């Protein structure tokens, strides 16, 4: 049976050169080929930055080493809009929506999940450094063997019957969030031959303005797969890439229980007119 994992789903097209899209098996490209492609884009970025072009802080959406991006990115520039009315607000979430226990991914089944128990803690801030209060944070991740609970993840690693890998919480008044979970493992995917994703936790975030909506991935420090991964490397600037890497924090680690990581998340700026009482810390 052909493994139906991740990028095989509808992956019938790859870029062979800069202009032509042809039918091919994406997984035929070697890691060296992909790495060279990544390095070429990064070198060009460094050169342009040295010439005074602005520092990039977000991923490129047009990033050919990530094969699936080729036909799924707009080719026209994003059009500038001044946010209006509904865009200056976000949906409100509350305790009707999220139970406090949903922040612990290790207690959702009858038994204890396998793997390294961890706590991930941090703050959600807006571009002005204001805490994003009482707002929804959602996470999902692979288990300690690198397997997702998903019909399209069929790679030969065990499912853990005690781990779904899904959690939610609301931020506190200081923008803080905290999850207890299991450290996810890297897993293989079909972008190219012998492609492996660095271990990561997916995060979904809301701000005070809907324009701040964000989905991203948190990584773990020192992952040897970083330089090989076209999704992580779609962020061309090292400083920006570092913003996705959590910090091991022994003060978050708890005695004979769990190791701890901290990771703060900064959303884009709010465009709403803030009043003193809303702004007060």
């Amino acid at each position: 049976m052909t493994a139906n994992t991740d990028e095989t789903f509808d992956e019938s097209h790859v870029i062979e050169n800069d202009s032509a899209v042809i039918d091919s098996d994406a997984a035929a490209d070697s890691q060296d080929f992909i790495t060279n492609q990544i390095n070429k884009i990064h070198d060009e970025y460094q050169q342009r930055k040295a010439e005074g072009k602005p520092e990039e802080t977000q991923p490129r959406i047009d990033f050919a080493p990530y094969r699936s991006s080729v036909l799924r990115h707009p080719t026209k520039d994003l059009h500038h809009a001044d946010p209006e009315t509904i865009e200056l607000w976000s949906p409100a979430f509350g305790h009707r929506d999220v139970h406090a226990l949903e922040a612990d991914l290790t207690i959702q089944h009858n038994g204890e999940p396998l793997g390294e128990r961890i706590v991930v803690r941090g703050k959600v801030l807006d571009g002005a450094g204001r805490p994003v209060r009482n707002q929804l944070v959602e996470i999902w991740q692979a288990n300690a063997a690198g397997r997702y609970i998903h019909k399209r993840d069929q790679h030969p690693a065990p499912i853990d019957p005690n781990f779904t890998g899904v959690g939610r919480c609301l931020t506190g008044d200081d923008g803080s969030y905290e999850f207890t979970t299991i450290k996810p493992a890297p897993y293989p995917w079909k972008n190219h031959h012998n492609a492996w994703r660095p271990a990561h936790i997916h995060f979904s975030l809301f701000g005070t303005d809907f324009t701040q909506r964000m989905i991203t991935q948190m990584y773990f420090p020192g992952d040897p797969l970083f330089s090989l991964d076209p999704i992580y490397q779609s962020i061309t600037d090292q400083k920006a890439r570092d913003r996705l890497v959590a910090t091991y924090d022994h003060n978050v680690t708890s005695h004979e229980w769990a190791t701890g990581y901290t990771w703060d998340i900064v959303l884009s700026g709010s465009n709403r007119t803030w009043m003193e009482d809303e702004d007060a810390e």
Partner: protein
Amino acid sequence: MTQNSTKLVATPGQTIGPFYGYALPYEKDSQLVHRAHAGSIRLHGVVYDGQGTPIPDALLEIWQADETGVISRETGSLVRDDHTFTGFGRVAVDNEGHYTFTTVNPGATQEGKAPFISLVVFARGLLNKLHTRIYLPEDTDALAKDPLLSSLPEERRKTLIATREANGDLYFDIRLQGENETVFLSYPGA
């Protein structure tokens, strides 16, 4: 109003990937109102890639005012009671790239302003979120005066205006790339 003293750089986004299925969709996620609600409409369409092929693993979210133009501050989007209008909806497209929301026509938030629904798009292969607007087609005067629409050439402008179907439903396709590529938006402070 206060001055923003600190200016932090935003954390980068990353693709939603393919495995959000147990995390993000939830019961009645796409039903902003119950189908039996007076004035309920279907908002639907297809998400396409650069070759015109439907994308089967996109996730869409909408956020909108109610029929009278009021922006809801109610909680309860994740646990719907079928009565409270929260203004937020989420939907994973089906295997043919098709999505359906059950909602109401948003009212104008100010007299003479063109009503629109705010839409955000996520997909495997899409390395960052994309924002756009779904305008209602009826108030042509308001559409003509709209600052965003009037800053766009005619052929691009029409990608942001939904089609009204005979039964009152709204139809809106999303084209990530290629011919009739949807206009996607950036905002100050991004």
